[in-house]
């Protein structure tokens, strides 16, 4: 059984701010990490590998060359194979172009029964890429999966969690799952795996390797949505600043609550 896991490197904190005077973006730090929901995806894949015989896990990511770091992490955790899809011509890709690029990469890898994604990334926060990849590949997707209940020869039964209810859903292979936080505890990269995998080649795929090589389908040109303008969030002009000793500011809180009839 072949599983492809889509992962992404994200900022470790919300590290982009705007200087409100000049409109220039300020970069606070270069800290990056693996998207937390992708860790649940990887862990789920590893657990399937432990349950079933001959499961092959292939981690993929799209990004600049430095994004190889998350692929190494995946290999040291337990992935068998890793591929980066990277090309300057992918720059400026929105959700549609990103999903299309990843679906082209998955088509290029071609051999898969199941694709596992995190339910969303913590930087884009859209939760759209997984379902769009599934649509481009013309396969079903099941979102917000928290548990794998059963794996059969031709399909899988999973539990998905929604706002006020859970669903038990069966779906046939090939399919795509997006993973939410469930009972999985993501494992750490292991020293032993690192010794085995550190010489493992991570393949880089560019536009020239993909089936559809029309540059207009990728990057900014392949993106229907365009950012027209960026600006800092609204501020209140009437915000009241309260400073002083702990006792004084606490008294102020009490007064505000009393004035508004909450005390």
């Amino acid at each position: 059984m072949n599983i492809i896991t889509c992962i992404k490197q994200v900022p470790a904190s919300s590290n982009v701010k705007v200087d409100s005077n000049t409109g220039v973006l300020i970069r606070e730090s270069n800290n990056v990490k693996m998207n937390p929901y992708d860790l649940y995806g990887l862990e789920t894949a590893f657990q399937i590998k432990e349950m079933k015989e001959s499961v092959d896990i292939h981690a993929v990511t799209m990004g600049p060359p430095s994004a190889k770091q998350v692929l190494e992490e995946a290999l040291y955790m337990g992935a068998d194979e890793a591929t980066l899809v990277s090309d300057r011509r992918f720059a400026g890709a929105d959700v549609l172009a990103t999903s299309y690029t990843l679906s082209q990469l998955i088509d290029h890898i071609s051999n898969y029964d199941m694709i596992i994604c995190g339910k969303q990334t913590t930087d884009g926060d859209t939760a759209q890429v997984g379902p769009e990849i599934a649509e481009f590949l013309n396969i079903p997707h099941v979102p917000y999966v928290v548990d794998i209940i059963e794996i059969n020869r031709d399909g899988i039964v999973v539990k998905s969690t929604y706002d006020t209810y859970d669903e038990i859903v069966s779906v046939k292979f090939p399919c795509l799952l997006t993973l939410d936080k469930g009972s999985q505890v993501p494992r750490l990269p292991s020293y032993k795996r690192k010794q085995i995998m550190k010489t493992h080649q991570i393949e880089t795929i560019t536009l020239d390797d993909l089936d559809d090589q029309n540059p207009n389908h990728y990057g900014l040109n392949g993106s229907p949505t365009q950012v027209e303008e960026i600006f800092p969030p609204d501020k209140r002009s009437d915000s009241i600043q309260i400073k002083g000793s702990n006792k004084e500011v606490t008294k102020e809180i009490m007064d505000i609550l009393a004035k508004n009839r909450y005390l």
Partner: protein
Amino acid sequence: MGYIKINQKKVTQDLADELQDICPFNAFDYVDQYLSINAACKVCKICVNKGPEGICEFIEETQVQINKKDYKGIAVYIEQKDNQAHKVGWELIGKAKELALKTEEPVYAIVIGNDVMKIAEEALNYGIDKVFVYQNKAYRNFNVENYTNVIEAFYRKYKVNIILVGGTMLGRSFAPRIAARLRTGLTADCTKLDIKENGDLLQIRPAFGGNIMAKIHTPNNRPQLATIRYKMFDAPPKIKRFGEIVEEPTDDIIIKTTIELLDTIHQPKVKDINDAEIIIAVGRAFKKQSDLDLIKPLQKRLNAEIACTRPLIENGWFDPRKQIGLSGRTVKPKLIINLGISGAVQYIEGMKESELIITVNHDSSNKLFDISHYAIHGDIYDILPELNKQLEVLEQ
């Protein structure tokens, strides 16, 4: 449409450093006196607009333009479960009517299900032109494959300009499927919408994972698709109905899926923070779970609901339904007290419409202060014990 071109002849080490400094995405590489842009580039054009003059240039590429006049109408997808409409649909009808005033286009609702005429009738009460109803036994439960086929059939027939979808958990799984099927853009969780005279929808949301907002448009694709969270907009008043219900045939729409719903398990009810009037929200400044006891006296006194930020959900301290923010719940309480919350924009966008906002934080540059009515500068570990003392005095 286009790309950023670098004038290599003018590049020096200093100018390369300057560009590397200015780029928020680390997209410049300078190797062997050659400056290149890597795949991290988001084409934000800051290097063109704010960088050293004459180095970076944006080369526009024109594409075949669509005729925007051919696409008319703003359609709202009305989500239903067990033949009950989700209220976010009515809120979106309100916004759609506002937008349609500017462009003079009709407002539609789309209802998919089995035995859902009641929902269609209800939709007309909000003052829309037409409700398109797709009924079939196979549509009784939401199925992303079958429902996507319905929306595709609707769009191919009616060529609407815009489709709005509620940003519920189902909507967030459904809308991207529609977008990819129709090869068009989709903006998730818009916090504001506006429209240009030519019908271009302006979609405003936080962007790039940072504390910035982006105004996004879809200049050359139709339909324009957006999801909007529940409680982001107000539902319009019910008015005297004038529209009509159009029952659409479903015989020619393909019904085929390998997804089978085996069981639905209802979770124990928790009080929904969506509807709470008083909320105490807690964030990462709480170092351990037992420290949350510090808020108990205030919570009891105010009879408040407790809510939290995403990191505390990741810690496993709270039920995910207690999370405020664009990746959680949008709230509009009468009073919200923010304790030790760093103020990520996705959090702020989920609560900034609250009537009275009090924020306690030790960090004076906290972004939440900017939208608070009262910004209390202080550490929660100093303020809360003092507050509990003063509350106790008050009780006596």
